[in-house]
């Protein structure tokens, strides 16, 4: 479905995740964060940058990966993106939600 975010029309799925990463911009990310009650700081952006790096290498994201990333520890990750940090961080970063097989 289409959604107007930051004055741009983007394709999202029913949960609000972007389906086409090329439509993502920093402004789109900020708007999604805002909708989730998160105000993005420099720390948030460092994490989003790390997520984008992983995504471009097709490496799956995990809490373990975050732990070993050297960017952030898990407790802080939870503070930055409260209530399901991987889900929220990936949504803001414009990439698909981490998933299992079914």
């Amino acid at each position, binding site marked *: 479905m289409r959604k107007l975010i930051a004055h741009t029309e983007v394709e999202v*799925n*029913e*949960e609000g995740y972007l*389906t086409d990463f090329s439509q993502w911009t920093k402004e789109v990310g900020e708007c999604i964060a805002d909708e989730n009650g998160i105000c993005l700081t420099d720390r948030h952006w460092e994490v989003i940058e790390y997520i984008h790096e992983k995504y471009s290498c*097709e*490496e*799956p994201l*995990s*809490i*373990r*990966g975050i732990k*070993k990333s050297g960017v952030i520890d*898990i*407790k802080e*990750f*939870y503070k930055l993106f*409260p*209530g*399901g940090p991987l*889900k929220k961080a990936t949504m803001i970063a414009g990439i698909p*939600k*981490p*998933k*299992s*097989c*079914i």
Partner: protein
Amino acid sequence: MKNLVILGAGTAGTMMANHLVKKLPRKEWKLTIVDQYKTHYYQPGFLFLPFDIYSTKQVKKNGKKFIPKGVDYIQKKIERIVPETNKVLLEQGDELAYDILIIATGTKIAPDEIEGMNGPMWYKNIFDFYTYEGAKALRDKLREWKGGKLVVHITEMPIKCPVAPLEFAFLADSYFKNKGMRDQVDITFVTPLGGAFTKPKATKALHYLLEEKGIKEVTDFNIERVDYENNKIIDYADTEVEYDLLVTVPTNMGDAVIERSGMGDDLNFVPTNKGSLQTTDYENIFAIGDATNLPASKAGSVAHFEAEILTDNILRYIQGQPLKEEFDGHANCFIETGNGKALLIDFNYTHEPVEGTFPFPGVGPLQLLKESRTNHMGKMAFRWVYWNLLIKGVHIPFVSATMNEKGKHFEEVTQ
């Protein structure tokens, strides 16, 4: 004489030995398979062992029976792979040189990764069912358990056979009903993911199972530690879940030999091309099954489909032809739902599980994504298929390595 060496004689390695012995000219190629363990386990059976549905005898056989003649079977521990010199170092200083290496060393549970899990209560009131020992210990526990809070828990993804924990919860519901003590057992399913099912299509079609069986869900739970003194698991957001009996799927990691060889990712899985199964770093090393970092399910059916494509690619590699990047992540799994019923799912990298029929488009007899007794019979019959066809590398009739899109209802798939 050239050497092709397979590391690991589990499902994937045994299948590769059986495929390649028929394809490689014996005068030019010597085939060797290495595995330190004598027993070949039927791992899908570990799900049934705790509930006394399968006996211990039904899930294990002597591995030697399945290694074909013409393949040298070495039962020794692998110390290290040295890709720079094309050698594998074995215990007692033995060395194996290879021209082509296939890594099929699988995945193992790593309960030490979580504080308090592999502590004094391991196999007392904290169990896994991904090992023979764990499944058997859990069987003994369930036989005498008087009830209470049963927590079925996934530590982190990826895990082997991702639906097995859910199947365990379903079978537990049936098991306690049959024992006439379901009202004394509270079942909770705890997952690091957003739900027991995470794909929209499957959630829509299958969520009723949890409600019907009265199984509670705790989602987005990323475990930090097990407080084994107070019987609770605690996550990074300080959420606590209490248990009387914890059945957990610990972190799954690639074999320690991959770490010793410096060839793995964070979880010791080998970076592998997802279409061709050649490792990313070494052109004469290939990987298959649970040992890879492929974004496919870690499951026997996946290894089976991979084996057909990898066999072709090994022959292409030998002939100096370009490799086919054909593997599409195809997986095909029966899911036990309890009460003698099961579901069947068929999916790949790009398509989520769909409704339809299998293996014959429009005919079946197996129904995809729907509960039925026929599917359950399929799952039970699969044990025979496994021992007699699958690991011997016999092509399963009508089931192709890549996913067949006919007879499946893709138009209903969202996302």
